């Protein structure tokens, strides 16, 4: 069972979170290719109201749209 129901769309600018799991296989596939997997710690650079989350990880600044972020479960660190 997931430890928490916090998803990527719920986080705010400046927060650092750990990826717990990704519930949609398509999203997980794309995330794996980009280097984002369960256990990774990412930093939130920006959150657009009703819009994407921008995270920093592995030298990338990645914008993740709401439809994708809803599948990415995280926990605060």
């Amino acid at each position, binding site marked *: 069972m997931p430890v928490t129901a916090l998803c990527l769309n719920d986080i705010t600018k400046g927060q650092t979170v750990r990826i717990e799991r990704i519930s949609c296989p398509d999203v997980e596939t*794309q995330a794996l*290719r*980009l280097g984002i*997997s369960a256990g990774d710690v990412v930093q939130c650079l920006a959150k*657009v109201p009703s*819009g*994407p989350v921008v995270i920093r990880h*592995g*030298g*990338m600044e990645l914008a993740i749209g709401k439809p994708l972020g809803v599948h990415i479960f995280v926990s605060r660190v």
Partner: protein
Amino acid sequence: MSQAIPDPHVCTPGSACHSVQASDLADIREVVVLAGNPNVGKSVVFNALTGLYTNVSNFPGTTVDIPSGKMPENRLLKDTPGVYGISRFSEEESVAENAILAADKVVNVVSAVTLERDLFLTQQILDYQKPTIVILNQMDEARGQGVHIDVGQLEKRLGVPVVPAVAVTGEGLDRITPLLAQSHSGNPMPDVPPPEALKQLEDDPATRLQIYGHRRAHVNALVSEVVSRDAQQSGKRSWSSRAGALFLNPLVGVLSGLVAMMVLYQVVGVWIAGDLVGLTEGKIMLEWVVPTIQHWVGLVLPQSSPLYTVLAGEFGVLTMSIQYIFGVLFPLILGFYVYISLLEDCGYLPRIAVLCDGMLSKIGLNGRAVIPIILGFGCVTMATVSTRVLTTQRERTIAATILAITIPCSAQIAVIVSLMALAGGFGAWLIFLGLLTTILILLGTLLNKLLPGKSTGLLLDLPPMRLPLVKNVLKKTWVRTVVFLKEAAPLFVLGSLLVSVAQVTGFLTWAEHVLAPVTVKWLHLPAESARIFIMGMVRRDFGAAGLYFLAETMSAIQILTALITIALFVPCIASFTVIWKERGVGEASILLAGSWLLAFAVGGVTVRLLELFV
């Protein structure tokens, strides 16, 4: 060696290259494919190795075809769209997959800044046992960020040569050709099946995830061995990262967007579309080139003959198309592409895409659609071509529809702006913009509900904010402009052929007579306005300009009605032909018929409402 004949490619003037022709292919003994993630500098490497320019772009999805060029020792080098892996999740990925798997050898460009991400593709290429050379690019940016890479160890673990490089200066690139001679495959992951079996497993979603998971863990372990980063100095953020964060702020986005639109309007709309085109079309074309052509044609054909009219008349194939392509389109498209390239390269455009993503997703698009939409205000034909940046057919259909129906191109905008004062000033603007926006939203929402499938959520790698390199902007702009004109010019020529034949056969006049009762009875416009709509199908500015001259005899309500109807009216012939080419004849026909009906329906209802309440 197995590939179709590549498209002839664009060369810049003065370069010592030539497009690859079918006859050249007989000499080719080896096909080398350039592969890598978006934004790693593949196109710069392609240029350095072949002398040919491809689309040097920040925005993923803008390499349209597979450009090919010749390398020393009879090798063919193919550039591919930037992809994150070998797969078929989008059109681009399918194109890249086919090229990579069919290649004799692969030159894989990775960025030293994002090694963890980029090596996934690298490892996958090695798992498919392709002879590979890895170019470790952007070493300068990595150094700047305090990233250190043990290249020797990386080579050992991958089993293939790794060439540190700074492609924009050329550093490291001279090692590629010699290394290609002895290139070999590298180290696949332990326990990975041979390529054919691997492909089957990776094509099956059930097993794919597992393999990807293993590969990701394998790459992560590798990276932790060879990469070390200096400790981050907090509080010492560069201007670039602060600017990057700033433009992700919605308020800043809106304000800067308004500023950007005003600059766009002034520079491209007024100076280029107005003053410069006044020179290139008004003086050079209309006072010199066109009369010269007419003179020469007149030496061979009598001026009153139908053939003369078709070739050199008002809508002549030799006169109007040349006048339009070089006098109007060329400076306009050039100006627009310079602007978009500047906005892209400095990192602004991707961030605007992020800010707009929320709104765009409501009409079945995502942030990437900002590019075609902005370009639409320049030329809808050009914008329709650029819908290729969108991932799925569904999104391309929605974007193309919105462009064709609700986005007025610069040809119309100039006249619309100047006539709004007569149409009722600020109030008229509100009605006009309100109506267009509402229809855009309704159309998008409707298509989103009706079209099968789902649109893709945004997943966008944001490049750092940086001062654009003038050289890159100019190169990009030139390539895009030439490629677009090459695609669109034949369509405009076709358009002028159709119209001048229509004129000569009397079809044009007949069409105006047939349409006149509709414009009078339904739109409450003068009978002469029928001509505006017919002309608007040929060139949007012809239609709008016709309105300009008629406006003196029309009331404010009539002018506003005409403006609204024209804005919604069918795409011009060139646009229509591009839509046909890109989206198929079915979609194009529906769009044509639909926009006719919609434009006149809205026009008729609007004029009655205006007469009732204004």
